[in-house]
């Protein structure tokens, strides 16, 4: 509802953001898509046109679909999907995502409930709990890996020895557990904060009404609080899933993908940048995009509904 002139002004003002994001989305996506149908092994001499020809020639190559690279149809997709590494990576990814989600949602609810109680120094506790979220992923991975999980000098090994037990070699003996621990430590604050916000928006009169209706504490939690939280929980799950599917630095710094901790993201990274099998990696990338989009659709539904209010 506005006048014509403000509408056209609006369109102009929106244009840069829309244009940039459009380019940012379409160009890399189309490149990935094209390359996923190509044989492209730079280490074996495959080249995009002639190198050093400048960006204009690259653009020409891009528009013509990189004629110097062999078209291999769906071969990359087939070999990526049929390799054992792919199946393992999918399982690893699901375990990490599922594990971190379970930890952060369950403990997040408990922590949010706790923080919602009256206490002294609530603000400070909140700050303590939220802090890990602000730690850069490489730092948290490194601190956990060395200072806590190091089998000789880590704090855990000291602790284990103090009880007369043999120190655990965390990252190779129980690598998945360790990774889930590290990543959960980073994401628990996020879940807690969002759930706490949701808790605080719960109308206390509703709870009091339920109490008057004879609902005990558990009934109040399950019939009033939990349904109220369901939306926030869904959002936590969806957003975290998107971020967790893309977990990279934590693995890069700790195990480097060894000991069965190679997630889909990490596998693609290795195919693309380490073994330089671009076609195969790009096919993997397409799989990753599809996977993320499935989650994204659900998230967008919820967010979209919220826009209509």
């Amino acid at each position: 509802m506005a006048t014509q002139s403000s509408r056209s002004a609006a369109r102009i003002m929106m244009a840069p953001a829309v244009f940039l994001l459009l380019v940012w989305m379409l160009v890399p996506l189309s490149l990935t898509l094209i390359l996923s149908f190509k044989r492209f092994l730079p280490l074996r001499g495959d080249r995009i046109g002639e190198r050093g020809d400048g960006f204009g020639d690259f653009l020409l190559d891009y528009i013509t679909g990189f004629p110097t690279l062999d078209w291999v149809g769906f071969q990359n997709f087939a070999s990526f999907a049929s390799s054992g590494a792919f199946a393992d990576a999918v399982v690893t990814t699901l375990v990490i995502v599922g594990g971190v989600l379970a930890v952060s949602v369950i403990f997040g609810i408990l922590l949010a409930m706790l923080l919602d109680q009256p206490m002294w120094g609530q603000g400070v506790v909140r700050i303590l709990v939220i802090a890990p979220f602000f730690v850069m992923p490489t730092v948290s991975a490194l601190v956990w890996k060395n200072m806590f999980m190091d089998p000789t000098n880590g704090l855990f090994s000291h602790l284990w020895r103090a009880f007369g037990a043999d120190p655990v070699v965390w990252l190779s003996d129980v690598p998945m557990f360790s990774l889930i621990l590290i990543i959960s430590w980073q994401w628990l604050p996020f879940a807690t904060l969002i759930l706490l916000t949701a808790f605080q928006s719960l109308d206390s009169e509703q709870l009091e009404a339920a109490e008057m209706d004879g609902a005990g504490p558990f009934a109040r939690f399950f019939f009033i609080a939990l349904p109220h939280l369901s939306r926030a929980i869904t959002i936590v799950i969806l957003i975290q899933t998107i971020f967790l599917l893309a977990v990279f630095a934590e693995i890069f710094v700790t195990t480097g993908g060894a000991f069965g901790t190679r997630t889909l993201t990490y596998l693609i990274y290795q195919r693309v940048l380490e073994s330089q099998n671009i076609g195969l990696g790009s096919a993997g990338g397409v799989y990753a995009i599809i996977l993320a989009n499935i989650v994204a659709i659900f998230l967008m539904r919820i967010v979209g509904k919220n826009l209509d209010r």
Partner: protein
Amino acid sequence: MGRITLQKVQKKFGDVEVIPPLDLEINDGEFVVFVGPSGCGKSTLLRLIAGLEDVSGGQINIDGEDATMVPPAKRKLAMVFQSYALYPHMTVRKNIAFPMRMAKMDPAEQNKRIENAAAALNLTDYLDRRPGQLSGGQRQRVAIGRAIVREPAAFLFDEPLSNLDAALRVGMRMEIGELHKKLDTTMIYVTHDQVEAMTMADKIVVLRAGHIEQVGSPLELYRTPRNTFVAGFIGSPKMNLIEGAAAAEHNAQTIGIRPEHLDVSTTAGKWEGTVGVAEHLGSDTFIHIHGIEGCDPMTVRAGGEVSVKHGDTVFLTPQAEHLHRFDAEGLRIA
């Protein structure tokens, strides 16, 4: 000067025609009230005049000039919004000064006008406060102050009193009325409250679904409503509209009689009914009477001291000279 003429003005949102083409003339110095139920298009009409919405067709003339395509700021109109729309980060003084600052007016003149407006609106002590520190009535006055200093050709008010409590509303109603007398500038005022319309207007425009149902002075509308809609909308309590045999007696589809034009008797009268609820207001008593054919309940406005109670049988007689007759289309029969 503030003479505003609408010719065939029309507004569509997409395919929905909110305001079918309408004509309206507003004379200089007139206090015009647009009234109607919510969703009748009265605010849209005001926003079209303000220039906040583009018309889909037709022409708006302000002081004889075609203003249809003129941007809002250039129409020499000032508007007071329902939410007051004060700038929260500016003091009262800066809020009032804003339109003058935008017009790059001489600062000395700006100050003079601010002082005058503040004095007129009892805001002098609050000039350095921010809107957040003011009461609803004070905010309202700041919004009016911001409109006054521009010395506009006409003031536009969009339901300005609906966010105030009942007592303040009565006070502000009178203040706005006073202001109009003092400034003698055209004012267009939108409200859904027919009491505001009746008490303030020189001319009332009754709107329904974008159509003008009737234009006239408050008393004209009260005395000779053009159709059943206006008859039911203007006046409080509402006019009783009676259908059926009683109406047929007067060769009409519907007859209307206002609650204050019914005589009550406990012994004899034209219509017999049973008392439902009696609302005692002190000065008046509104009695809702059931069991009268064609109009249930019928409302009567009786004296404050009338003592009837629930279940009593009463008799009503309409005052013949105040009877309104309407045809099958709901239009008044002269």
